[in-house]
């Protein structure tokens, strides 16, 4: 295949296909992942090609899906589980937090839990309740889980490969409103580490740190700011557990200003941890407090309000201005 332009959803599909091909222990499980190919078609065609024993339509029960995936992992399989939407992961939360996250430690390392949980997340698609949430902080707080989110098709392909190869449970947040965004994917490339952040735009005056769907917004904001003569660095964090603080620190030591952007509510969102830790690491470098742009402390609003709720270009630029005003 080598290099090819493809949509983010298609890149994940290709990555799953590659994994299914390479390792007979890889399984796909979830609601409607079979014939339908998932509500976003991310698993399109996989059941047809790999059969019902490897691409498994499950009963409608998220705890059951994750719980049996754990059992399959104990038997030597590597299940890749789909949760249909962000808001439907909570019935599985107990299995994820008390079992999946802790079992490796409970066994003093004698068993491994190579389970990937794919969650299409975030808003911006005009959906009904429970279909637009960003619960990543609720997983990143929990030791034993790794939490990542790609922002583009190439990362989607490679991060999925790495997540499946990981012997740790990985919560894989897919930015659903970017599913249709295309980018070059080079399947022959040698990817960098899964949990390393990447500078996606260099700049001198301020660092914008984001992941998943907000990377694009930050890039747009940086472009707009440039027209006003502000040089903004944009960092794609890629991983929320662990967070690559070294890269954030390096950037902030250069720019001396940091704004973190995510869709999730600001209060106790990942931005809180980044602000706290970077302030500690860069106390004498920061010219302004770390600012955060994100969702409000309110349930995700009905679709006609989501534009007001979600961080957009203007709100990011507003925070940039506030930071630069210090």
């Amino acid at each position, binding site marked *: 295949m080598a290099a090819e332009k493809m949509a983010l959803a298609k890149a994940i599909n290709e990555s799953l296909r590659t994994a*299914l091909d390479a*390792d*007979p*222990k890889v399984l796909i499980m979830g*609601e*409607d992942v*079979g*014939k*339908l*190919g998932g*509500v976003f078609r991310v698993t399109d065609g996989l059941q047809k090609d*790999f*059969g*019902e*024993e*490897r691409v498994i*339509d*499950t*009963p*409608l*029960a998220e*705890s*059951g899906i994750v719980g049996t995936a754990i059992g399959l*992992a*104990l*038997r*030597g*399989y*590597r299940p890749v589980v789909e949760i249909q939407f962000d*808001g*439907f992961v*909570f*019935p599985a939360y107990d299995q994820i937090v008390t079992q999946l996250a802790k079992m490796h430690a409970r066994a003093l390392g004698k*068993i*491994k839990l*190579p389970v990937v949980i794919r969650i299409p997340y975030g808003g911006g698609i*005009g*959906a*009904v*309740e*429970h279909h637009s949430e960003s619960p990543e902080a609720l997983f990143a707080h929990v030791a034993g889980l790794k939490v990542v989110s790609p922002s583009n098709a190439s990362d989607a392909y490679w991060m999925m490969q790495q997540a499946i190869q990981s*012997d740790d449970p990985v919560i894989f947040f897919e930015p659903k409103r970017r599913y249709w965004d295309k980018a070059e994917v080079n399947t022959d490339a040698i990817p960098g580490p899964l949990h390393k952040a990447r500078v996606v735009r260099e700049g001198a005056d301020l660092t914008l740190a984001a992941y998943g769907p907000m990377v694009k917004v930050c890039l747009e904001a940086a472009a707009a700011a440039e027209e006003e003569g502000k040089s903004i660095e944009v960092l794609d964090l890629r991983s929320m557990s662990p967070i690559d603080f070294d890269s954030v620190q390096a950037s902030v030591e250069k720019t001396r200003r940091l704004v973190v952007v995510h869709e999730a509510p600001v*209060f106790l969102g990942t931005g809180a941890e980044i602000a706290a830790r970077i302030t500690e690491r860069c106390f004498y470098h920061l010219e302004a407090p770390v600012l955060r742009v994100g969702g*409000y*402390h*309110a*349930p995700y*609003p*009905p*679709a*006609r*309000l989501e534009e*007001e*709720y979600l961080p957009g270009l*203007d*709100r990011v630029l*507003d925070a940039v201005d506030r930071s630069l005003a210090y």
Partner: protein
Amino acid sequence: MTVESTAARKPRSSAGTKSAASTGTTGTKSAGATGRKTAASKRTGAAAKKSPGTTGAGPELVQLLTPEGKRVKDATYDPYVADITPEDLRGLYRDMVLTRRFDAEATSLQRQGELGLWASLLGQEAAQIGSGRATREDDYVFPTYREHGVAWCRGVDPTNLLGMFRGVNNGGWDPNSNNFHLYTIVIGSQTLHATGYAMGVAKDGADSAVIAYFGDGASSQGDVAESFTFSAVYNAPVVFFCQNNQWAISEPTEKQTRVPLYQRAQGFGFPGVRVDGNDVLACLAVTKWALERARRGEGPTLVEAYTYRMGAHTTSDDPTKYRADEEREAWEAKDPILRLRTYLEASNHADEAFFAELEAESEALGKRVREVVRAMPDPDHFAIFENVYADGHALVDEERAQFAAYQASFADAGEGK
């Protein structure tokens, strides 16, 4: 052919799993070698049972009107519709027709971009109108997201149902004005709310009943099982009304169970019954029976209405990906509305004028729905911060103020220019 026997015959092979113990890191020992057969290997065991299949309409299906519109007798359930008048029958017919009309209007409003999404009840009118009309005013209903017909029976203005599909709210009607709870999207969770509510009814010493709707897919959720346990243990006056419409999005009922769903109740210690969900009379009778059991303090009942989702799961869904047209066609022959119409006409319970009038009413309803939806205003931006808490919350206040200042900055900027 029963599903159970199919499953039992399924060979232990793994398509695509070429090597059983190749790459796994844990637990992959090839155990087959140590297998031994026992003397009794043909035995299926004392407790094993023969079960009717999940797919067909077996003998256990309660039916009062055949698909051809013939009234058939049923000693158990006839008493529950014994006093039904021709007017009542026309009423049920009208309910179904108007509900279908409303549903069709919503579907087309979605296509026109007025709604973001719609979950059609097409084909399930009898299950919903029959059960909905069985409820008493003081009963309480906990719906899923598809109970537009039940809402109709409860007197909820149908345009109220459209707010969440348009994206102007997440429900928002007052559940207590019609004893009709908000639509619940997280599958199965409302069955526990219904059970708790019913526990409260019992505590109050009231003789109201509660009815919880859910789907065949939902039957797999742990919450539904827990609601069975709680309602049985506390003998709560609740009816679990499962519309088995054969599909949970793309998954057929066989992916949720290998025996008919109504049988689930038995193992929790209360009765389950399967009713023809396209037979409005049977749905009415069986639900009345179940609600009256609840009122009399006899506890929960599971009703499985065996029906069919004639349309897509929602307007976002494409059923051609996973099911054949023939299936739908077969079910069209069992159409709930046609069936009652045939009966009404054959028994001279309704004349041309009735049907013509209903047609006009139907169009008027469509028009009104269209107009109301188009006029539905977008919510005020500050609605984001409203009703997050009943008693207020400092952070919400702080963020609301920041939001106001931010909004004002645009106005200022605009003025500045």
